[in-house]
C-alpha cells in the first residue's frame, strides 16, 4: 500500500514538473520573441515605498485597498439584499415572488459589464452617485442575485418538519425563520457564500472601466509608465491570488468546523 502511494506521488511530481517546465518554456519563447527586458527589481517600488523609515503603500497596494473597500462594501450590501430577495421570493405574496424572480433572472442574464455601464450612465446621475458608489452598488446588485439563490437553497435545505414544529409551538412566521430555520441553514449557506465573496473580489476588477483606481487599473497605469507588462500582471495576479486563497482557506476551515460540531453532537 505504502509502496503504491509513493510511486503515485512520484508520478504526480513528474507531471507537475512537466507542466511548470512547459510554462517556463512558453514564457521564454514569448519574451525572447519580443526581446523582453525583465526588470523585477523595479517592481517593489510600485508596491510600497519607504521614506524616512515609514512604509507608504505604492500604487499597486493603494489599488488593492480600493479593491478591498469596494468588495467589502459590495459584499455586505449583497448579503443583506440577497436575503431580502430570497425571503421575498419565498413569501406568500405573489407580487413579491414575481419581483424577486424577475430581479434574479434579469441580473443573471445581463453581462456585468453592461450592468455597470447602465448603472453608471443611467441610474447614477438620477441619484447623483459618484464612480465609487456606482461600482460598489453594481457589484452588490449583481452578486445579490446569486446570494439570494444561495439563501434559498440553504433555507429549503432545512427539513420542512422543523418549520412546522416551530409553527406548532405558536411562533409567528418571522419567528419560525429567525429562531429555527435560519440558524440551521447557516452551515448550508456559509461555504457557497465564501465562494461568492471570492467571485466578487475577482469581478471587482471590472470597475476599472469607469475609471476607479482599483488593483487592476493601477496595474495598467504602472505598465503604461514602465512597460513592465509581464512583471506587473504577474504581480497583480499574485496579489489577487493571495487574497482569494486566504478566503478559500477560511471557507474550508468554517466548513470543517460546522462538520465537526455536527458530528460531535451526533456522537455524544
Amino acid at each position: 500500500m505504502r509502496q503504491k502511494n509513493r510511486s503515485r506521488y512520484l508520478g504526480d511530481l513528474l507531471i507537475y514538473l512537466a507542466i511548470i517546465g512547459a510554462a517556463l518554456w512558453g514564457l521564454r519563447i514569448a519574451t525572447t520573441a519580443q526581446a523582453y527586458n525583465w526588470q523585477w527589481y523595479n517592481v517593489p517600488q510600485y508596491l510600497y515605498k519607504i521614506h524616512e523609515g515609514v512604509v507608504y503603500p505604492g500604487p499597486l497596494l493603494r489599488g488593492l485597498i480600493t479593491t478591498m473597500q469596494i468588495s467589502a462594501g459590495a459584499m455586505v450590501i449583497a448579503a443583506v439584499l440577497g436575503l431580502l430577495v430570497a425571503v421575498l421570493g419565498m413569501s406568500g405574496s405573489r407580487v413579491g415572488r414575481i419581483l424577486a424572480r424577475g430581479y434574479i433572472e434579469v441580473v443573471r442574464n445581463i453581462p456585468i459589464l453592461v450592468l455597470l455601464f447602465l448603472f453608471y450612465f443611467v441610474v447614477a446621475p438620477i441619484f447623483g452617485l459618484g464612480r465609487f458608489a456606482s461600482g460598489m452598488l453594481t457589484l452588490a446588485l449583481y452578486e445579490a442575485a446569486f446570494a439570494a439563490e444561495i439563501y434559498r437553497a440553504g433555507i429549503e435545505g432545512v427539513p420542512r418538519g422543523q418549520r412546522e414544529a416551530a409553527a406548532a409551538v405558536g411562533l409567528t412566521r418571522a419567528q419560525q425563520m429567525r429562531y429555527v430555520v435560519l440558524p440551521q441553514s447557516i452551515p448550508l449557506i456559509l461555504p457557497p457564500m465564501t465562494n461568492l465573496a471570492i467571485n466578487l473580489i475577482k469581478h471587482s476588477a471590472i470597475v476599472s472601466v469607469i475609471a476607479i483606481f482599483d488593483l487592476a487599473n493601477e496595474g495598467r497605469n504602472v505598465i503604461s509608465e514602465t512597460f513592465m507588462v509581464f512583471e506587473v500582471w504577474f504581480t497583480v495576479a499574485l496579489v489577487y491570488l493571495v487574497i482569494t486563497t486566504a478566503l478559500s482557506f477560511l471557507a474550508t476551515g468554517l466548513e470543517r468546523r460546522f462538520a465537526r460540531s455536527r458530528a460531535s453532537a451526533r456522537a455524544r
Partner: protein
Amino acid sequence: MVDAVSPDRPLAVELRGVCKWYDEFQALKDIDLQVRQGERTVVCGPSGSGKSTMIRCINRLEEHHGGEIRINGESVELYEARPHLIRQRVGMVFQQFNLFSHMTVVENCCLGPIKALKLGRAEARERAMHYLEKVRIPEQADKYPSQLSGGQQQRVAIARALCMSPQIMLFDEPTSALDPEMIQEVLEAMIALAEDGMTMICVTHEMGFARTVADSVVFMDRGEIVEQAPPSEFFTAPRSERTRAFLDKIL
C-alpha cells in the same frame, strides 16, 4: 383506566362539513366531528384516508376549503392572519418528532414559552423541567436531540408541546416512526396526559391505547368519517363493512 367525560361539557373542537382539496383530489369530504373538553378521541383508518390532514386543519398547518372549524366555540376564520394564536392553545406532536436539531432538549422546550408566551428564561426553564419530569426524561435536558433514542425524542416532543400549556393536544401518529420496544414509553406518557384530563385527538394505530384511553374512536376512509363510536362498541360491534375490514387487518 381513564374516567369517561360527561356529555354536558362544552365543545373543545367542532368540525362541521369540513372539505379540503389538493387540486382535483378531495382529501376531506364533509367531515363532522365534535370533541368535548377533556375528551380523548382516537382517529384511525388506512393511510391516505385524510386523518393527518384533518388534525393539521385544526391547528392551521393546512387550510380547509369548505365547512367550519371551531375551537372552544370560536371559528378559526377569526384567526386567519394570526394562526400562531391558535397554535399557542393547540399543541401538536408529529410522527417524525421534529425536535429543533440545533437546540438542546431544554431549549426545545423553552423556545415557544419564551418567544410566543413571553415568559422569562427562569420561569420557562422551570416549566420545561416540570414537563420533562412528567415524561420521565429530566436527566437528558442538556443533550441534543441527535443524542437521544426515538422514544426519548418523542417524549421530549410531548413535553415541548405541553410547555405551551395547551388546552388541546393533537397527536399525528406519534408512535409510527418508533422501534417496537420504544412505543410503550411514549404511550405511557400519553396515558398519563389523558389521566390529567387533557383534551386529546390522536391519530394512531395503537388499538390497545384506543381501548384503554379513548372516549370515542373515529374511523376514516377515503376522506370521510365512516364510523364514530365509544371503543367498547367500536371494537366489538362495528356497524360499517369498511370498519370491519380494517379492524380485521390490524387486530
